Every structure is written in C-alpha cells, then in structure tokens.
C-alpha cells in the first residue's frame, strides 16, 4: 500500500477557503482513496464552532499554493503520481486557495467542530472516498464560512494510491 499525506500548519486563511485540493490524474493512472482528514487551530484559540466540508469541484479549479504529497513510508522508492500545483489541474495538489475558481462545488460531506478540539475524520474502509483517475473533478477540504480567527490553522489529509 502506498499512502501519502498533504499537510500544512501555521496557515492564515482568507475566509471561506479551500484548505486542500487534490485532483486525480488523467486516466489511465491510479485512483486515490482518501483515508483521513484533519483540521485544527494550533494557536491559543478561543472557543468557536466552525463548519467544514468535503466537496468536489469541477473546472474552473481554485488557485492554490502548490503542495507536494509526502510519503508515509519513507522507503517507498516512488513519489506520488500527484505533484504540487497551483491551478488545481489533474494530477496536482495545492493548499490554502487564494481564489476559489468558478467551478461548481458539490458538497459530499458536511460537519462542524469546535476549534479548540479540532476535527479528525477517519472513514472506516467501507466509507472511504475514492476519486478515480480521469474523474474531471478534484476533492477539496473546504471552509464554507470564514472562521472567527483566520490565523494559526493546521490541516492535512492522507490518501492511498489504489
């Protein structure tokens, strides 16, 4: 099994923001099975509720800071098929969108959490989300409303190439 993570910390978000966006590669390629998502505020936060969504987005994709997936198994000789990218294009990943893009977002998971406790979503195997290669949409971890405090966010996700 080849698992990879994308994470960042100490991030200042713009408001309603796509935190991470991963777009599967064009077919034929591996599919992406998403195993874990997390969001938290590392700074000395004030208690507040925050909405969080997983959503798929079609083109036009968000404008992002490029993020290269990190191997969970360092001895794995191969890098992920997903590379860092700023345009949300197929086969790329990015974080902390500066523009959301005009593509339609479809909410596939909705939740809320207290910023003091953070949010960890670990789907059991039957509930994991698989984004197939060649799917023309990416998967985003998204703040649908602006958090009360914009600074000090840490977030990440783990996916497996299957």
């Amino acid at each position, binding site marked *: 099994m080849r698992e990879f993570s994308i*994470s960042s*910390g100490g991030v200042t978000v713009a408001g309603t923001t796509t935190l991470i966006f991963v777009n599967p590669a064009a077919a034929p390629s591996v599919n992406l099975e998403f195993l874990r998502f997390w969001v938290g505020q*590392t700074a*000395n936060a004030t208690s507040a509720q925050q909405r969080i969504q997983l959503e798929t987005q079609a083109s036009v994709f968000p404008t992002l800071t490029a993020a290269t997936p990190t191997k969970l198994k360092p001895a794995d000789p191969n890098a992920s098929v997903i590379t860092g990218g700023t345009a949300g294009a197929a086969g790329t990943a990015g974080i902390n969108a500066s523009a959301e893009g005009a593509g339609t977002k479809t909410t596939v998971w909705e939740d809320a959490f207290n910023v*003091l*406790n953070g*949010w960890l979503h670990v789907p059991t195997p039957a509930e994991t989300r698989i984004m197939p290669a060649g799917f023309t949409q990416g998967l985003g971890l998204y703040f649908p409303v602006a958090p009360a405090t914009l600074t000090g966010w*840490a977030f990440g996700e783990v996916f497996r190439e299957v």
Partner: protein
Amino acid sequence: MMSDDAHLLIGTALGRTWRRENKTESYVVIPPALIITDSDGATWTLGTEYNVHMEFNVLRNDKDTGEFASRIEYQRGVLRIYGRDGWRTFSRNRRHFI
C-alpha cells in the same frame, strides 16, 4: 519569536506545537475531535499506523505510546482509550494504560 505565558498548556501533535489556555473539556472524544489537551499540557491524538482491527496508534506529544485504540476520550480529567481490550485509563504516574 512568539513568547508564551507561563500558564499556557503547550504540547505537540502531528509535527505542530499546540497552545491552549485550558485543558480539554470533559467528554471530548477523538475522533471526531483532533486533539485532547490534558492537565499536564500534553497533546493527544491518533496516529496513522493501524492494526487489523482498524485501531490507530495513540500519540502523546507526538510520541507513540505503544497502544492502539479506536477512540481517545477525556472525562473529568482522566484520559481513556477504547479498543479491542475495552476501556483503559492512563495511569496517574503518566507511564502506561491500565
């Protein structure tokens, strides 16, 4: 560099430093919470290693406790983990689960 007040509870998880004014409230459970801050300031979370029962390794300040669990709960100042062996409580000497 940020200076911290002496009363802050400061721990580490997921490679980050977490600062909290207070310990986590009772009945907070991981998941869906991401972290628990105990009265020592230690930060607890679940790691990415797992066993065949879909239990994850339990991390305290990013150090593996050697335990696997599906849930970590904080209740009235006591940290408990739940897994195939049932509920177990973190000992008062901060060394192991009972």
